[in-house]
């Protein structure tokens, strides 16, 4: 098909042709076209179907506020539903499909809904589909769900990349129409840092769609000249294809730059879109205005569009929706459409204006005092019915109708912080109130100043005013003379008297009748109206529909429009791809990875890694022939308990605590006493929250009188540090204590097992005595290893074996584990992972994250006596509360199945023998369980009511979730070496 509706001129490059497909049909367009303009030039009016009634629809607008012409753009994994044809830039090879229709756009079986529209009024679904009860989910809802929705996702992973960034400026100008450009010129020349952003792919705003001249020049020349100057200014950043999506607190705006959406695919390494967070000291909203339709019967047919949009298609894109058109307007501006169309050689059948005194502007028939009462044409407009001033009816043949009910200032962003627009009777529209976001002002049509002259002058003056607040002087700039036509309109919202349907919200199929029904049923607040009828809830969020609904509700309620009020505009200004909001943080890069110092070595060993927070830790080290993880883990445990093993424990948090009050400080943050810990010794510490619940635990070593190194659990390192700073800065500001994290600075390895000392003696420099006497249990010391490398040695044990932790500067961590493994070969040293670590700590009955679950007290953990009553420690007072000290308080105990082949399930609950299995008979739960290769049995630890006094009792461990039940004996949680002989050996 040729471009039968293509006109001359426009801002398209007709020297080049682009081929594209819509619903499989090939068409041609030109650079500068949108999908909508190109389809229109090719004579295509039907572009979509409505949501509920599946009515045939064409474009209503020429911008991002489009409710009707939504398509699925591209194919495969890049398929993009609900793309506005009016903003999709044409590129060679573009593919688009209509959506929400079956089997085809022209014949949509679901259009049957339109026949039954009388039954499908606002809120009908709340009143039916209730019987029989089960049918809602089984029958009705699936049908409704399938019918609902608009476009479809491919459900393939989005292959494109997205980026994020941060920008800073004195003045952010939103919109690059005449007001935005004048503002940018003013601000740019002042030297201020300026960002000028526009959602369009051409700067100029409405100037691109009008035939105005500015001064002596065509508008396009002034725009080009202005842009050239702005682009040359280093302090001005002009951002095209960039939509400012929201005004957030304190001058922060979000903006989405569509870097590659106009290309078939993004260039390699380049993002599809960028989300910018803009820190603007001042923001000037120059977002223009959005035209509003008039509701009349069957006002939704393809070919019926906003008059200003029609003008834009003709002027900017040299495309007309039909060869013969008409215009229906209640204001002078609508007449311009007729003028411009006639100038382009389009036949304008008539201008219909309900005002009896409508001016004659265009060289065509004027029907003053008339109104459009109905239309016809199944898949596109063919005729309009007009009621003339004298009451007579007339049918006019036309393929398109431009409609203008006036313009609404685009106040969206002024409402993002719940500001309310105010009514301006002069233009019969809401204009920005004075309660908008702090630092944001408005100029031009967005502020109700509709003429080009007013846009230019208010843009310049508001920019200067904003900068003045920042102490930046802006000189007035020379602005070209421009049209200054006053607004002349008579409010006219809908054509009364019709029996059919007149659309307000075209996408959601909300009609005048629906608003009347909502009123009848007492859904009268604007929010009730919106929610009950779905008016304004479509993808355009009511930009073209809300005003009509409000006006009708006001009329029904006998109130003025401002008394009825408006619903709130919420961010984003236009819908934003989720990908852009996610940015680079997805897939493997969702969160940063933390690697341990032995990571490279462990990778070489074929270790299996596990995520522990952001850390990747070796979980176990499979050896050839091991096919089950348990084989590896059992081997590692046996090797440690039998000889020696090495485990990377760098992930434990390390906090350097120094200062003359360091000991006193630790006494405050630990429940147990620390003040008297000897230099060269390490002590286990239990930290409570102020509510008396265990927060964290770990060992803290005293390296000097005024120097401690605290360890925290891996998970709580950040939180504990923050807590310590809180205690220091907010509670004890005069304590001389300095805190800093050193977690990453040291590679730390546990060397555990009966041969651990022998192994360490091979690498610790000989001047250091680490014999049992020279370096007893819980000792710590700064030493050197491997011929002079500074290191720290702690004799602490998580496994219950004779064990040490040795730390060296992280860069030597890789070398150290290699050295340990080489030196340990004679002892058959193993590397062990977190799984074996976990098995050994359960065997030893040490609490870890599963036990320190944020609800357990020191008493629960069997450490009640550690909480010193002789000092003021965080959490000690509230730990005295009755509910935390019940006689039957949960206590940490061990569980061993009576049948050693049975499995203890972590998360299982404990019941007494012979009682019903239900919540009221619950005795406790198992927190951690494992297979102990030492005991040759599954074992667990957990919390049991009054557990300390129930040793030897047999209980049922039930886990209905996993379908298991075993009998377990209550035992001490210290399965291995309960007296601690080994670790002191």
């Amino acid at each position, binding site marked *: 098909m040729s471009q039968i509706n293509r006109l001359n001129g426009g801002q398209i490059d007709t020297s080049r042709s682009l081929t594209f497909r819509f619903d499989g049909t090939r068409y041609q367009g030109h650079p500068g076209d949108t999908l909508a303009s190109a389809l229109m030039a090719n004579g295509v009016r039907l572009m979509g179907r409505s949501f509920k009634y599946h009515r045939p629809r064409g474009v209503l607008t020429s911008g991002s506020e489009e409710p009707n012409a939504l398509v699925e753009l591209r194919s495969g994994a890049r398929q993009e539903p609900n793309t506005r044809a009016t903003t999709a830039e044409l590129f060679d090879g573009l593919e688009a499909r209509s959506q929400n229709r079956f089997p085809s756009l022209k014949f949509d079986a679901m259009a049957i809904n339109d026949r039954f529209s009388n039954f499908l009024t606002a809120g009908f679904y709340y009143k039916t589909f209730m019987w029989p009860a089960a049918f809602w989910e089984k029958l009705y809802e699936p049908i409704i769900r399938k019918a609902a929705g608009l476009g479809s996702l491919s459900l393939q992973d989005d292959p494109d*990349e997205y*980026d*994020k*960034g*941060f*920008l*800073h400026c004195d003045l952010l100008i939103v919109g690059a129409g005449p007001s935005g450009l004048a503002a940018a010129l003013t601000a740019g020349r002042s030297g201020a840092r300026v960002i000028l952003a526009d959602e369009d792919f051409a700067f100029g705003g409405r100037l691109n769609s009008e035939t105005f001249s500015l001064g002596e020049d065509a508008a396009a020349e002034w725009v080009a000249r202005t842009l050239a100057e702005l682009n040359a200014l280093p302090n001005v950043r002009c951002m095209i294809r960039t939509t400012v999506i929201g005004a957030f607190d304190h001058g922060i705006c979000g903006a989405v730059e569509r870097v590659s959406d106009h290309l078939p695919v993004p260039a390699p*390494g*380049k*993002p599809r879109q*960028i989300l910018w*967070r803009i*820190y603007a000291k001042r923001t000037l909203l120059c977002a223009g205005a959005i035209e509003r339709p008039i509701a009349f019967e069957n006002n939704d047919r393809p070919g019926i569009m906003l008059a200003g949009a029609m003008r834009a298609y003709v002027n900017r894109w040299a495309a007309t929706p039909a060869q013969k058109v008409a215009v229906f307007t209640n204001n002078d501006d609508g007449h311009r459409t007729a003028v411009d169309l006639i100038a382009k050689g389009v036949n304008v059948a008539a201008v219909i204006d309900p005002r009896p005194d409508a001016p004659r502007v265009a060289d065509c028939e004027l029907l003053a005092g008339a109104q459009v009462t109905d239309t016809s044409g199944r898949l596109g407009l063919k005729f309009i019915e007009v009621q003339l001033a004298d009451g007579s009816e007339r049918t006019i043949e036309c393929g398109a109708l431009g409609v203008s009910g006036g313009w609404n200032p685009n106040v969206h962003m002024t409402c993002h912080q719940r500001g309310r627009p105010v009514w301006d009777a002069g233009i019969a529209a809401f204009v920005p109130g004075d309660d908008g976001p702090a630092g944001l002002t408005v100029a031009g049509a967005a502020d109700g100043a509709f003429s080009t002259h007013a846009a230019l002058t208010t843009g310049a003056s508001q920019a200067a005013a904003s900068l003045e607040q920042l102490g930046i002087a802006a000189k007035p700039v020379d602005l070209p003379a421009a049209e200054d036509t006053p607004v002349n309109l008579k409010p006219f919202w809908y054509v009364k008297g019709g029996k059919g349907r007149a659309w307000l919200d075209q996408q959601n199929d909300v009609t005048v009748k629906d608003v009347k029904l909502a009123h009848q049923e007492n859904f009268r607040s604007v929010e009730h109206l919106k929610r009950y009828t779905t008016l304004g809830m479509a993808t355009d969020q009511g930009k073209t529909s809300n005003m009509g609904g409000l006006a009708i509700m006001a009329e029904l309620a006998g109130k003025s429009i401002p008394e009825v009020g408006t619903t709130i505009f919420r961010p984003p200004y236009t819908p934003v791809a989720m990908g852009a909001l996610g940015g*680079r*943080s997805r897939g493997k*890069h969702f*969160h*940063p*990875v*933390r*690697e*341990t110092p032995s*990571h*490279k070595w462990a990778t070489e060993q074929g270790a299996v890694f596990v995520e522990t927070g952001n850390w990747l830790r070796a979980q176990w080290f499979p050896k050839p022939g091991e096919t089950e993880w348990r084989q590896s883990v059992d081997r590692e445990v046996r090797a440690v308990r039998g000889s020696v093993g090495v485990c990377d424990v760098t992930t434990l948090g390390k906090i350097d605590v*120094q*200062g*003359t009050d360091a000991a006193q400080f630790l006494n405050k943050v630990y429940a147990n006493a620390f003040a008297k810990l000897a*230099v060269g010794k390490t002590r286990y510490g239990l930290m409570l929250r102020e509510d008396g619940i265990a927060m964290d635990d770990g060992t803290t070593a005293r*390296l*000097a*009188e*005024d*120097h401690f190194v605290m360890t925290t659990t891996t998970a709580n390192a950040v939180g504990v540090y923050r807590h310590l700073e809180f205690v220091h800065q907010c509670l004890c500001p005069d*304590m*001389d204590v*300095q805190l*800093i*994290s*050193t*977690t*990453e*600075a*040291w*590679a730390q390895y546990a060397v555990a097992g009966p041969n651990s000392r022998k192994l360490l003696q091979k690498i610790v420099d000989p001047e250091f005595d680490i014999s049992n006497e020279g370096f007893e249990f819980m000792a710590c*010391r*700064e*030493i050197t290893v*491997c*011929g*002079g*490398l*500074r290191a720290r040695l702690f004799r602490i044990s998580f496994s219950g074996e004779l064990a040490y932790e040795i730390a060296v*500067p*992280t*860069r*030597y*961590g*890789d*070398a*150290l584990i290699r050295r340990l493994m080489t030196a340990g070969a004679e002892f058959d040293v193993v590397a062990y992972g977190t799984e074996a670590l976990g098995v050994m700590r359960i065997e030893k009955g040490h609490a870890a994250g599963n036990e320190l679950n944020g609800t357990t007290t020191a008493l629960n953990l069997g450490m009640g006596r550690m909480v010193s009553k002789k000092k003021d420690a965080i959490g000690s007072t509230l730990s005295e509360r009755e509910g935390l000290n019940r006689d039957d308080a949960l206590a940490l105990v061990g569980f061993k199945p009576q049948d050693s082949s049975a499995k203890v399930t972590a998360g299982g609950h404990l019941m007494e023998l012979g009682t019903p299995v239900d919540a009221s008979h619950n005795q406790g739960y198992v927190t951690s369980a494992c297979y102990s290769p030492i005991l040759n049995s599954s074992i667990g630890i957990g919390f049991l009511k009054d557990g300390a006094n129930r040793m030897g009792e047999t209980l049922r461990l039930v886990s209905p979730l996993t379908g298991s039940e075993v009998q377990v004996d209550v035992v001490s949680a210290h399965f291995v070496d309960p007296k601690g002989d080994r670790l002191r050996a």
Partner: protein
Amino acid sequence: MSSVPILSTLKETVCVLDLTPLTALGGTTARVDSFDGLRISECPDWALASVAARLGQEPAMASAARAFLGMALPDVARTAEPDPFGVFWIGPDQWMIEAPHDTHESLAAQIKAALGDTASVTEQTDGWVRFDLQGERCHDVLERLCNADTRSMAPGSVTRTRLEHLGCLLIRRPQDDHFSVLGPRSSARSIHHALMTAATSAI
């Protein structure tokens, strides 16, 4: 009260011939990546130590530090570069001092010896990975990564910022278009990936 450690491992030159250190990215040599107008280099050859003034010792610490560095400690959010050191402010009465690793592997001990009881000193050398960004496109890349306003950051200033979800130090060196990013060492590869992705995206 003594603040002398139970054992000082202060050694002027540490010779650890048979332990090969790795860079934060896991190499034995530092990684360098070049783009048109930007060079991203891993900088492992720096020792770091933090110093924090003891309560009430701030003036004494400042003068001791001046004696040690040959220059006053920098003001809030500023850096100083008394050869061979780099000094940057990291918090109230807290600074980070960097020095060439080859000659100052025991930097913390050296500083502690100089400042005595006026300050708490902590070795930070391997707590951090440092990447230097040099070239006129560094702003274009950094603006994709963190909210620091690098274009208006004065040369010789430092800020802590959030980069790739991580708290990092960003230092603008006195030279034109030269920034250092210091981030948590364990996440060196994630930081490097972010730098590379942003550079590819922006340049």
